[in-house]
């Protein structure tokens, strides 16, 4: 952790709002959740305080297996944002989790030429800063 604090993290960080701080805190424990409405049963990602289908605030947190498949992706060769311009090319992707929702993420620990739609992937947790952990994905092992 001390090493991470001295090594400056350059990429844009999320503006975490209070509504979903518990979700981000779970990522810090290396746990990934989606939400399910206790009233109508609809699942949702990204997390938010009430269901979009019935507006109920009664929410169940569903712990994810961390497994899914690549729904679509792009190998990014140009991005002027700090942190990303130093790490080109990188893979931006939507992963469809086994729990049935798609999330935006990066595919890591694999050569970009090997990335394919439908490829099974698993979550890895990147502790970007002491306050922020990101859910990224690598080819399933």
């Amino acid at each position, binding site marked *: 952790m001390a090493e991470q604090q001295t090594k400056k993290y350059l*990429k*844009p*960080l*999320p*503006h*975490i*709002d209070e*509504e*979903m701080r518990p979700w981000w805190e779970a990522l810090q424990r290396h746990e990934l959740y*989606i939400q399910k409405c206790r009233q109508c049963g*609809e*699942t*949702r*990602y*990204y997390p*938010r305080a009430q269901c*979009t289908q019935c507006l109920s605030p009664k929410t169940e947190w569903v712990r994810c297996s961390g497994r899914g498949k690549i*729904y*679509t*992706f*792009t*190998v*990014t*060769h*140009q*991005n*002027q*944002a700090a*942190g*990303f311009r130093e790490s080109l090319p*990188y893979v*931006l*992707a*939507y992963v469809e989790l086994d729990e*049935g*929702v*798609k*999330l*935006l*993420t*990066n595919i890591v620990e694999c050569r970009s030429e090997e990335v394919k*739609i*439908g490829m099974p992937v698993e979550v890895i947790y990147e502790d*970007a800063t002491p306050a*922020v952990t*990101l859910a*990224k994905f690598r080819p399933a092992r």
Partner: protein
Amino acid sequence: MSLKKKAAVVGAYEHPTRFAPDKSMFQIMAESIRGALDDAGLTIKDVDGLCTTGIGMSAMGIVGFCDYMNMTPNFVDSTSIGGSSFVAHTAHAAAAITAGLCEVCVVVYGSTAASSRFAIGTGGGGIGGGGDPCDQYEVPFGPTTVGSYAMIAQRHMHDYGTTPEQLAEIAVTTRLHASMNPAAKYRDPITVEDVLASRIVSSPLHLLDCCMISDGGGALVIASADRARNMKKKPVYILGTGETVRHVADGHRDFLEVAAAQSGRLAFDRAGVAHKDIDLAMIYDSFTITVLVTLENLGFCKRGEGGAFVSGGRLRFDGDFPINTDGGGLSSNHPGMRGIFLVIEATKQLRGEGGPRQVKDCNIALVHGTGGTLGTRHSGATLILANN
């Protein structure tokens, strides 16, 4: 109450600039309004409605622009839904005029995106600037505008076998049209091979699959159909309108279904015309893939058939299904947003002012603007226009 043929575009002007480091955004807008009012044969004193927004503008920019112009309109609208905004503004102006909220409404846009060096497509901050609650789940992963559209292209290729060559043909046809537009920024013809040989910006999209960043602006004047009949130019009637948004939908989105499916259906139903009646389509071409999926979602071909549909020169001004006769954002201009130019070019074509790129017997045109990022959050606004 229907809006069909209640209002018309009576003035249209595209600012000729593509690079204007000597001008401010408001100056380009003011010069565009002067041009559009000249075209309509009206003066600024006739104008009592104003619609605008912009990428270089603050959230309250329309008030600042009224200050600059010393205007006090009876109707203002700064709906800001990305590059499609001005297509929606045209519909809102027609609705406001029909409802009696104003009589003559100007829709205007101006930007110094190029001379101010905005990195719109590859800035990495997301279109919302990273400050909306939903952005926190995206910004850390390096989404770019190009990347968002690229992910749609990747999925389309995977599902339907669409090829880079088919996407490239859209860029080639658009460049041909630009070669006939003296104001277009890029006028030298290109080939499919040129597109495929250009560098990959975000796979599978090449540089020549992407629109440019230019400076520029334009303005439209909208008035009631009754008033339009006594104007300087032939009126271009607004027959039907539609607008909506698409987004990640709780993580359940079908990504190849885009806003055009809904806004197009609304516009066709309200206009009471059929697909076969459309003589020209002006389709927002932020990227080649934008055109292909928009045509599918508007219903001009079935889902998955867009690749074949855009091939074989069909989209040329003299082809079976002419689109983007001004040279589009791919080759004419793209000052951050270009919805207004779609309406301006459709107006010119419906008046028969297309010059060497005039579409033969052009009587009904469809305009579709896409705003934002297709693979994350975007808007769609459709207009159907006619000259009689």
